């Protein structure tokens, strides 16, 4: 069956958000099964989002702040644009890896801004925590990407082609999991969104469409990290294989979430410093020792 490439591109763009929400549903279901619960159906996040879009916006003083209205949509746009970087045969945007890092930092920065615009002490605390951690984890993430690209001696994401990098760069793999836990806000490093400490964190004041956009961008980020996880450390597969492996990666993330508790913000920072040292050692190592 040969489809017109343009139709494939349109289908891809249209189906990213539902696919990401189903991945979020798989995460919820997998965590529930690991916790001895039944859990919601995997399509539940889609219903949640549809319901949120029907809701009215909250009557909060933060509505006077224009950032409060705009930032969730911007966050969604940035999270959506991650998917233009996935090098598949039919969708090829030629960008180098530095642009990818910029976009990831931008998403985190918008998330922080969303918290400060919320006019709520809890979201401000959550944003401050995110800022403190950003100093460390964005650096680690950048060095991980640098390590990968220096090792392969390429510049473009689409040119990256190496199978089973986790065997060649095991320390980078471990550091990637740690950074991934912060980026997609799951335990052990979900200090910025800890519900028992800072309520819902950044999302405390949001409701209706704003909350829906924030939730979608969370789901998109989860899916994107699952894709990166497969793409960088296991291999560059075609679309049907990706559709099979990405849910498996999400189940692995669920396993990490279900088997750990949450560290305090200062403990998280200490551990991130440790990971920073590890990845620096790895970065230097690939110059001298490789296998």
């Amino acid at each position, binding site marked *: 069956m040969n489809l017109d490439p343009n139709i494939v591109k349109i289908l891809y763009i249209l189906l990213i958000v539902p696919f990401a929400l189903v991945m979020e549903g798989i995460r919820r279901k997998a*965590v529930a099964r*690991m*916790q*001895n*619960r039944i859990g919601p159906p995997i399509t539940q996040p889609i219903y949640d989002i549809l319901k949120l879009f029907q809701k009215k916006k909250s009557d909060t003083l933060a509505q006077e702040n224009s950032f409060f209205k705009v930032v969730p949509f911007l966050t969604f746009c940035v999270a959506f644009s991650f998917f233009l970087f996935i090098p598949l045969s039919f969708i090829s945007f030629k960008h180098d890896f530095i642009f990818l890092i910029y976009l990831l930092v931008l998403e985190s920065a918008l998330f922080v801004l969303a918290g400060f615009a919320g006019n709520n*002490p*809890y979201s401000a*605390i959550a944003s*401050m925590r995110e800022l403190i951690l950003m100093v460390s984890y964005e650096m680690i993430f950048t060095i991980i990407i640098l390590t990968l690209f220096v090792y392969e001696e390429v510049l473009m994401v689409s040119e990256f082609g190496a199978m089973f990098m986790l065997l060649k760069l095991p320390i980078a793999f471990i550091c990637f999991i740690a950074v991934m836990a912060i980026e997609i806000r799951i*335990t*052990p490093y*979900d*200090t910025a969104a*800890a*519900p*028992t*400490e*800072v*309520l819902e964190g950044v999302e405390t004041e949001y409701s209706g469409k704003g909350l829906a956009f924030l939730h979608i961008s969370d789901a998109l980020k989860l899916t994107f990290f699952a894709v990166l996880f497969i793409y960088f450390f296991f291999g560059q597969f075609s679309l049907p294989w990706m559709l099979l492996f990405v849910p498996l990666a999400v189940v692995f993330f669920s396993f990490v979430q*279900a*088997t*750990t*508790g*949450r*560290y*305090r*913000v*200062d*403990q998280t920072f200490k551990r991130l410093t440790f990971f920073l040292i590890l990845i620096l050692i790895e970065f230097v190592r690939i110059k001298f020792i490789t296998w």
Partner: protein
Amino acid sequence: MHDHTHTIPVGPQSPTMKEPMCIRVNLEGNYIKKAHVRMGYLHKGIENMLEGKSLIKCLYITEHICGICSYAHSACFTQAVERLYKIDAHKKAKYIRTIVAELERIHSHLLWFGFAMHEIGYDTMFQYGMREREYVLECFEKITGNRVIHAINKFGTVRYDFDKEKEGKFILDKLAKIEKIYPFYEKMARKNSVITSRMKEVGTISKSMAIKHCMVGPMARASGIKRDIRKDHPYEAYSEVDFELITETAGDSWARTMVRLREIVESIKIIKQLIKNMPEEPVPKFTKAGPLFMANVPEPKKTLTYGQVEAPRGEDFHFYKIEKGIVKKARIRTPTFQNIQVIETLLKGVEIGDIPVIISSFDPCFSCMERMIVVKDGKKEVLKEDEFRSKYC
């Protein structure tokens, strides 16, 4: 000079607390400069509710003081009435009561362990705690017919008989399951990096501080005080069983976790001994002509009485004035009331992320604790025991 602090309210509706309490926290950066606790969201007027009611009605009301230690409160009331009317409960009834009390302790500690793990984001352990607790609830259903409000106590006896072959075997089967999984919990609490790093040296209460604040129960035992009503003033069948008094010395949140976890094993040990030595003869049936309507029990000369029970959270103390089968005055002091006084001192200087850990380590139960004091004309008075009796009893 500009003040670099800001105040945020934690509670009354907060995922940190399962029951409403408001702590106004004065923050300097991420650290607490000052904490102000405000209560009074759950005042039920339970003492007022008891006054003027007959003993059997009060028995039903005391069952409903607390949802988690419902047995402890009714046992306390039953003990107070039995002490006043000099009723010696049947031996088998005492055994059954002790079994229910210890099952309640296991259930309460497992529930607490789950919530404490939930506070540090370990939701899987929370769900596992709930799974083990379900076995205990099944035991309750088998013995008392109810899962939460047991209603097993009657004056001088218990409501249902206990068959060693039927109920005894069932309970032993369920407890064996908890015993089998228990080493996993203890290993997690001792070895898991998240649990130890979040709980060790957080909310430390020294021994002198615990004595000063008259702390009770696992809170006091975690600070190294050997205080337990089951050992100090044995009631029911506790004088006939052999068990260890669990203490820790660190006094932090982790020590409290360990005390509660290790107490589960001791409770299982007690229940096994009781089922083994259970008397064969059936418990006497409770009739309406029995002690309830004072048909065959002489009216005592004294009117004041008290009950003292080691509830899962610590010493539960009830004080009553009973005249002609009617409760005239009631005073209930729950363990949380003793323990919660220290909370403002403990919260000073800690990171905001430690608030849930410290509060949950108290195992607070606000619904049974909240009291109201009416201060008339703003006067304060200090009374001696005789004056207090003549004026208020």
